[in-house]
C-alpha cells in the first residue's frame, strides 16, 4: 500500500519534445496546455476584477467619498460581478476540467481536442469584448444581471450594454462547446474498470456541472437574443410601451442564473472532495451520498430560480413554493458539509496549505449556506434582498466557497501541472492573510445590510450607522490584496524553481498521481485498468502503470511516437474560427452606429471566413 508520497526525482521528467514557442501555444490541442491557458487567463482576470473591487471598496471606505463618479462606479460594480462570475470562477473551473478530467478517468485527451481549443479561444475573445471597454469608460453598467428595461436602448443608449450582450453571448458559446466535449469525454473515455461510481468526485461534480451548462446556458442565450434584437433590430421583447413584461427577463435570467451558482460552486466542492481524503489519509466518507447530493443540488437548482425575485410580487403561492424548494437544497448541501467533516474524523490530518484552504471552505461555506437559508424565507428576504446582507451572503458562497476551493485545488495540483511544488511557507502566509481578509471584508456586510444599506449605491450619507462596517470591509480588502500578491509571487517563483515534486508528492489515491509530473503529452503510457475508487491506495502500482524500463529511455520519458501512441496535430484553425466568429458578432455594433452596409460587410466577410475555416477544419485529419 502506498501510504506516503513517492520520492521525488532530481530533475523534471520530460519526453524531450516539449515545445515552448508562442506558436505552440496558439495551435495547441493538448488538454493540459489548454488547461494552463485557462488558468493563466483566469488569474489575469482575477487581478482585473480584484482591482475593480479594490476601487469599489476605496470609494465606500467612508461616507460621501468622491474617488469615482456615479457612472464610473456603476461600470465598476457591473464589471466586477461579470468578470468574477464569467471570467474568473468559471474559467478557473474550466482550467481544472481541462487539466484533470482526462487524467482522472484514465484518458489520453478529451473527446474533441480541437473543439476544446476552440472553446478556450472563444472564451478569451468574449472576455476581451466584455472587459476592454472599461478602459475607454464605456463598460457595461447595467449590473451583472442586467435587468430590463434599464438595459434597453430607451434607458441605456450608449454602447455599454452592447458589449455586455455580445460578450456574454460569445462566452456562452465557449461554455456550451466545452460542456458537450466534457460530457462526451466522461461518458465515453473512461479507462477500463472506471465505472461511474469509481470516478473521482471532482470528475463527478464536473459531470453534473456540464449538464447544468448545457441546460441553463440556452436559456440566457434566448434572453440575450431578445435583448440583442431589441437593441439592434427594434423588436419589442422588453419595450414597456409595447406591453412587455420586464419579469420575462428576470425569469429567463434566473432560470439560467441559479444553476449558474451551482456551476460556480460544484467544481470547488469536487476539488475539496479530492483534497480532504488525501490529507486525512482516509477515503471520502459516504462517497455515494456526496455524489447523489451533488446531482440533487444540480437538479433542484433548476427549481428555485424565483427566490431571486421574492420582492417582485409573484404572489403568495409562488413565493411559498420557491421558499420551500430553496430550503430543500440545504439538505444535500448540509449532508456534504457533514460528510467532509466525517472524512477528517479519525484521520491523520496534515495541514498543508491545500488542506487548510479546503478546511476553510467547509468553515466559511457553512456561513454562506446559513445566510442562504435566511434568504429562502420569502418575507424575511424582503428585508435582505438588494441590501448588503445579500452581498455578504454570495461573497461567502463564492469567495468562501468557490475561490477557497479553487485555491485548495491550485496548491494541490500545481505539482501535477508543473512538476514543481508551490512554496508552503508563502502558501501559509497567503492563506492567513486571504482568509482573514475575506472574513473582515464580508462579515461586516451582513451588518450594514441588516442596518438598511442597499447594494449598488456608489456612495452613502454620513450618520446612517454604516461607517464602521464599511471601513472594516475596506480594510479587509487590503489583507486580501496582500494575500493574493503573495500567491502570485509564489506561483511565478515556484513555476521556475520550486522543489521537484515527483509523481505523487501528497500520497494521493487517484489515477492522475500515478503518472509523471509534469504529465507527458500522451498522459498514460498505457491505459490503466481500474479496480478501486482509490487505485493508488488499493491497487498495486504495477497494475496501473508500466515499469520505468518500459516508459523511459536514456534517462527521459519515451515520446508518443516511441510508444506508438497517435497524437492529434496542433492546428491554428480553432483560433481562426474563434476570431471570425467574434468579429462577425461584433459587426452588429455598426448597426448601432447607424452604418448598416459596414455592419453587413463585416458580418458577411467574417461569416464566410468562419465557413471556410470550418470546412478546412472538417476536412483536415485530426491525427
Amino acid at each position, binding site marked *: 500500500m502506498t501510504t506516503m508520497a513517492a520520492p521525488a526525482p532530481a530533475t523534471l521528467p520530460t519526453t524531450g519534445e516539449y515545445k515552448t514557442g508562442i506558436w505552440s501555444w496558439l495551435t495547441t490541442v493538448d488538454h493540459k496546455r489548454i488547461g494552463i491557458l485557462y488558468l493563466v487567463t483566469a488569474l489575469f482576470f482575477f487581478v482585473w476584477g480584484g482591482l475593480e473591487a479594490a476601487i469599489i471598496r476605496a470609494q465606500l471606505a467612508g461616507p460621501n467619498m468622491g474617488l469615482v463618479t456615479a457612472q464610473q462606479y456603476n461600470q465598476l460594480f457591473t464589471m466586477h460581478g461579470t468578470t468574477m462570475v464569467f471570467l474568473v470562477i468559471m474559467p478557473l473551473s474550466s482550467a481544472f476540467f481541462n487539466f484533470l478530467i482526462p487524467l482522472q478517468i484514465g484518458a489520453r485527451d478529451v473527446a474533441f481536442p480541437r473543439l476544446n481549443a476552440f472553446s478556450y479561444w472563444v472564451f478569451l475573445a468574449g472576455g476581451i469584448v466584455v472587459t476592454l471597454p472599461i478602459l475607454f469608460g464605456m463598460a457595461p453598467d447595467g449590473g451583472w444581471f442586467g435587468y430590463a428595461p434599464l438595459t434597453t436602448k430607451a434607458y441605456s443608449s450608449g454602447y455599454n450594454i452592447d458589449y455586455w450582450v455580445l460578450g456574454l453571448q460569445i462566452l456562452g458559446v465557449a461554455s456550451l462547446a466545452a460542456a458537450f466535449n466534457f460530457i462526451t469525454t466522461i461518458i465515453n473515455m473512461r479507462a477500463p474498470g472506471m465505472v461511474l461510481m469509481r470516478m473521482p468526485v471532482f470528475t463527478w461534480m464536473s459531470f453534473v456541472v456540464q449538464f447544468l451548462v448545457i441546460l441553463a446556458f*440556452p436559456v440566457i442565450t434566448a434572453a440575450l437574443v431578445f435583448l440583442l434584437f431589441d437593441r439592434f433590430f427594434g423588436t419589442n*421583447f422588453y419595450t414597456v410601451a409595447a406591453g412587455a413584461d420586464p419579469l420575462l427577463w428576470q425569469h429567463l435570467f434566473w432560470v439560467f442564473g441559479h444553476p449558474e451558482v451551482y456551476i460556480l460552486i460544484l467544481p470547488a466542492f469536487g476539488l475539496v472532495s479530492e483534497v480532504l481524503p488525501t490529507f486525512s489519509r482516509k477515503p471520502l466518507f459516504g462517497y455515494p451520498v456526496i455524489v447523489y447530493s451533488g446531482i440533487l443540488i444540480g437538479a433542484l437548482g433548476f427549481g428555485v430560480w424565483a427566490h431571486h425575485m421574492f420582492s417582485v410580487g409573484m404572489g403568495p403561492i409562488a413565493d411559498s413554493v420557491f421558499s420551500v424548494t430553496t430550503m430543500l437544497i440545504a439538505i444535500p448541501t448540509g449532508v456534504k458539509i457533514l460528510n467532509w467533516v466525517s472524512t477528517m474524523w479519525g484521520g491523520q490530518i496534515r495541514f498543508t496549505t491545500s488542506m487548510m484552504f479546503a478546511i476553510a471552505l467547509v468553515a466559511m461555506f457553512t456561513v454562506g449556506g446559513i445566510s442562504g437559508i435566511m434568504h429562502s424565507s420569502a418575507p424575511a428576504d424582503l428585508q435582505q434582498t438588494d441590501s448588503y446582507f445579500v452581498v455578504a451572503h454570495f461573497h461567502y458562497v463564492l469567495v468562501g466557497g468557490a475561490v477557497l476551493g479553487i485555491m485548495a485545488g491550485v496548491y494541490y495540483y500545481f505539482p501535477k501541472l508543473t512538476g514543481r511544488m508551490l512554496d508552503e511557507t508563502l502558501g501559509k502566509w497567503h492563506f492567513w492573510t486571504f482568509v482573514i481578509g475575506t472574513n473582515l471584508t464580508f462579515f461586516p456586510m451582513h451588518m450594514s445590510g441588516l442596518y438598511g444599506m442597499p447594494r449598488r449605491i456608489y456612495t452613502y450619507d454620513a450618520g446612517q450607522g454604516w461607517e464602521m462596517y464599511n471601513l472594516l470591509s475596506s480594510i479587509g480588502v487590503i489583507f486580501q490584496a496582500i494575500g493574493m500578491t503573495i500567491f502570485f509571487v509564489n506561483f511565478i517563483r515556484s513555476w521556475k524553481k520550486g522543489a521537484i515534486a515527483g509523481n505523487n508528492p501528497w500520497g494521493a489515491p487517484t489515477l492522475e498521481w500515478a503518472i509523471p509530473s509534469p504529465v507527458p503529452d500522451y498522459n498514460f503510457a498505457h491505459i490503466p485498468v481500474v479496480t478501486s475508487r482509490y487505485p493508488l491506495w488499493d491497487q498495486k502500482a504495477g497494475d496501473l502503470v508500466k515499469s520505468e524500463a518500459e516508459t523511459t529511455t536514456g534517462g527521459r520519458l519515451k515520446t508518443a511516437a516511441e510508444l506508438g501512441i497517435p497524437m492529434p496535430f496542433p492546428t491554428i484553425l480553432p483560433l481562426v474560427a474563434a476570431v471570425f466568429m467574434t468579429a462577425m458578432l461584433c459587426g452588429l455594433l455598426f448597426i448601432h452606429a447607424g452604418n448598416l452596409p459596414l455592419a453587413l460587410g463585416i458580418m458577411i466577410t467574417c461569416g464566410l471566413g468562419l465557413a471556410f475555416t470550418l470546412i478546412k477544419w472538417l476536412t483536415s485529419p485530426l491525427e
Partner: protein
Amino acid sequence: MATAAIAESHSHGEVSHHRTSTGLNHRKVAVWAFIGSECMLFVSLISTYLIYKGRSVVGPYPHENWTDPATGKVFKEILNIPVTSASTFVLLMSSLAMVLALAAVQNKDKPMPTGWWDRQLRSSKLWLWMTALLGTTFLGFQAYEFTSFVHEGLTIRTNLFGSSFFTLTGFHGAHVTVGVLWLLALLGIDYKRGLKPADALNVDIAALYWHFVDVVWIAIFTLIYLIK
C-alpha cells in the same frame, strides 16, 4: 456552438482509436447532448411566445381580427392554418425521406434487389435529395408566410406577437437551413465518392438533428398555430 460542435462531430475529429466506455460513438453522444441543449433554447423561445400571447397592445393578432382605432383599418387574423398545415405535412414527409436515406446508406453493401420500387429505396442520393427538397419546400412556405405577414402589416417590430413569432419561427427556419446545408454536404460526398455503410454514422447524426428540428416544428405548430 451549434456549428462548431457539428463541425467537430462531422470531421472524424474525435480521438477514436480506442474503444469507448459505452460503445457509442463520441459524435453521437455529443450530438445528443447538443440536442438536449437545443431543447432548452426552443423551450425558452416557445415559452416567451406563450407568455406574450394576448399581451400585444396593437395588432395584427394571430387568431383575431383587429381594427386600428386610429385609421379604422381592419387587420385580419394573421395565422394561415391551412397553408401551415401543408408545410407541416411537407416537413413530416422529409423526416420519412430521411429515414429512408439512412436505411439506404446502411444497406449499401447488401445485394441490390430486383423490384423497381425496392431499387429506388436503396438510392441514398434520391432520398437525400428528397429530404433536402422537402426541407427547402418548407423554407419556401416560411418565406411565403413571412412576406405575406409583412404585406399584411406585421413585422418583427410591430408588436410583442410579431417580435416573439418571427424570432421563434425564424430560429426554427435557421435550423432547417443548417439541416439542408448539412444534407447537401452529405450529397456532395455521395456524388464524390459514394456514401458507404461506414458513413452511416454521419448520416445517422444528420438524421438525428433533422428529426429533432422536425419534432420542434410539431411543438411550434401545435402550440402557436392550432391552440387559440
